[in-house]
């Protein structure tokens, strides 16, 4: 296990290098002249040249890449074209809202989702099962941005209970967090149920029952423990989904987070900021995938890594 963990961690390094290269190439893959696109159709040649100079596009590609990599190490990611700030200055204040939203959404979604899934599997075919799965399937099917708009319509515009946007108070987190976590809650509930039903048909569960264990230890210690591998896979995959949800939620609720900054930066063709944000999301996701991979071995020793 230790050897596998080390191997997996080391193997992430080339991946990071490849991703940083792909993100570096992002600006060069855009059809046409990025400097012209940024400067606008009516810009003079001198303006376009100035933008090209600012982006460092005049230099040969290997030198551009070298400078980019050096910048990554030293924290010099260039300047935002939109407001002249350094990229780090532009991004730093956007972390907190997105991280807070992600954590609050993940906590409620995991607790409710996994619980619904277990209850549903144990009570298969009963009214509770149908209600839980109706909630789950509705959560998966709801467009997050639409749910957000309707929640604003009901709780902010209609009832006036909660703010329509911003993040000035804890109440402001309620609607965005509900919107952001609904899909993940639903996915976790469905997968937990499906996986639990499979586990509960296994021989070891029958054996546990036969030796006289009561239902709770049978469900939690035998069936649930063996279902964890699938639940962890799905749960791990969903963190990235949450961040993608932040783009929509932050747009709907006017939250100044990373997702909204990315959308604004793409629309404004602020490519240095786009590059930095893509790299952040990539780094974050690789770390989560790594943790999910390592947990496979911990949860299910049957799974061998040779």
């Amino acid at each position: 296990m230790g050897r596998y963990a080390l191997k997996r961690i080391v193997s992430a390094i080339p991946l990071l290098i490849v991703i940083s290269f792909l993100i570096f190439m992002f600006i060069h893959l855009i059809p046409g002249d990025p400097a012209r696109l940024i400067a606008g159709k009516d810009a003079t040649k001198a303006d376009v040249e100035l933008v090209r100079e600012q982006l460092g596009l005049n230099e040969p590609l290997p030198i551009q890449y070298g400078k980019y990599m050096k910048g990554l190490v030293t924290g010099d990611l260039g300047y935002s074209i939109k407001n002249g700030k350094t990229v780090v200055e532009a991004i730093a204040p956007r972390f907190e809202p997105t991280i807070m939203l992600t954590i609050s959404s993940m906590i409620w979604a995991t607790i409710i989702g996994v619980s619904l899934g277990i209850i549903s599997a144990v009570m298969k075919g009963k009214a509770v099962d149908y209600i839980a799965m109706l909630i789950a399937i509705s959560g998966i099917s709801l467009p997050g941005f639409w749910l957000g708009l309707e929640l604003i319509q009901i709780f902010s515009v209609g009832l006036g209970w909660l703010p329509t946007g911003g993040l000035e108070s804890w109440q402001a987190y309620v609607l965005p967090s509900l919107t952001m976590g609904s899909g993940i809650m639903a996915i976790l509930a469905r997968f937990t149920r499906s996986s639990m039903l499979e586990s509960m048909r296994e021989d070891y569960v029958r054996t546990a029952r036969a030796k006289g264990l009561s239902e709770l230890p049978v469900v939690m210690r035998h069936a649930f423990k063996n279902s964890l591998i699938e639940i962890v896979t799905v749960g791990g995959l969903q963190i990235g989904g949450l961040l993608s949800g932040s783009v929509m939620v932050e747009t709907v609720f006017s939250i100044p987070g990373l997702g909204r900054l990315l959308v604004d930066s793409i629309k404004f063709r602020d490519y240095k900021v786009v590059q930095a944000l893509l790299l952040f999301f990539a780094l974050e996701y690789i770390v989560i995938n790594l943790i999910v991979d390592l947990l496979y071995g911990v949860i299910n020793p049957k799974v061998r890594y040779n």
Partner: protein
Amino acid sequence: MAEMKSTVNIQNFEDAEALPKPKSKVKEFVKKFTKRKTAVISFIFIVLLLLAAILGPYIAPYDASQADYSNLLQGPSAAHIWGTDEFGRDVFSRLLAGTRLSLASALSATIVGTALGILFGLIAGFYGGWIDSLIMRCCDILFSFPDILLAIAIVAILGPGMINVIIAVAVFTVPSFARIIRSATISVKESLYVEVARSIGCKNWRILWVHIFPGTIQSMIVNFTMRVGTAILAASSLSFLGFGANVTEPDWGAMLSQGRNYLNTAPHIVLFPGILIFLTVLAFNLLGDGLRDTLDPKMS
């Protein structure tokens, strides 16, 4: 002797006649499937949607792009059952026209992404070693960007438009499938029946397709249904953000995006496209559930 042989043959033939005829697999499937009411209703809903996608422009009460400045932002009425938008266009007619666009893009993207994902997942999980590492690292690269962000990045490079949205959605469908199928394959390949197949000398491709692939079908169907839904949601999300379909097109997401500005005065512009997206995704999910329960004998 010849007479005896003939008697035996006739006897065998008569015995065979007396045996119950094997049931047609299709008939058996239909019989089981029709017992699941929600799946049948969802199937009918999807068929109706497909019909609407084909016949939309012929059955729509109004031209989807025809502006009517004397009827701006009207609520639902007898003349306009789902009201009108900010240009006085009939919301129902625009949603009908948008059905073709939304369904075609979501289905084609999911099918392409799923096929590639299953293939890569099976190969990675079964063979392990460097093939597994290579495929999983490629997936990690794609996975390193959350779904919608990867789609946004691809559309930002390729430019807006529905074809680019389909490519983007197909690309982000691949790694999630590959990973889940790989995970299922790793678990299944440790099973006793796979070990038995290997010990009696089955070739790798046979073990893969005959013994391991059916074991992953349940995960695959559950995931596929979710991915069709995800594809519809992703395509409409891209349009909502302004990266997908042109705002002038009657796309479900684009309509929601435009309607957002009139949330206080004309909430129906947001309500109806949202309900339609919700019901469509719900129908695909419920249909997938029904198919899983029908196809997997363990569940029945």
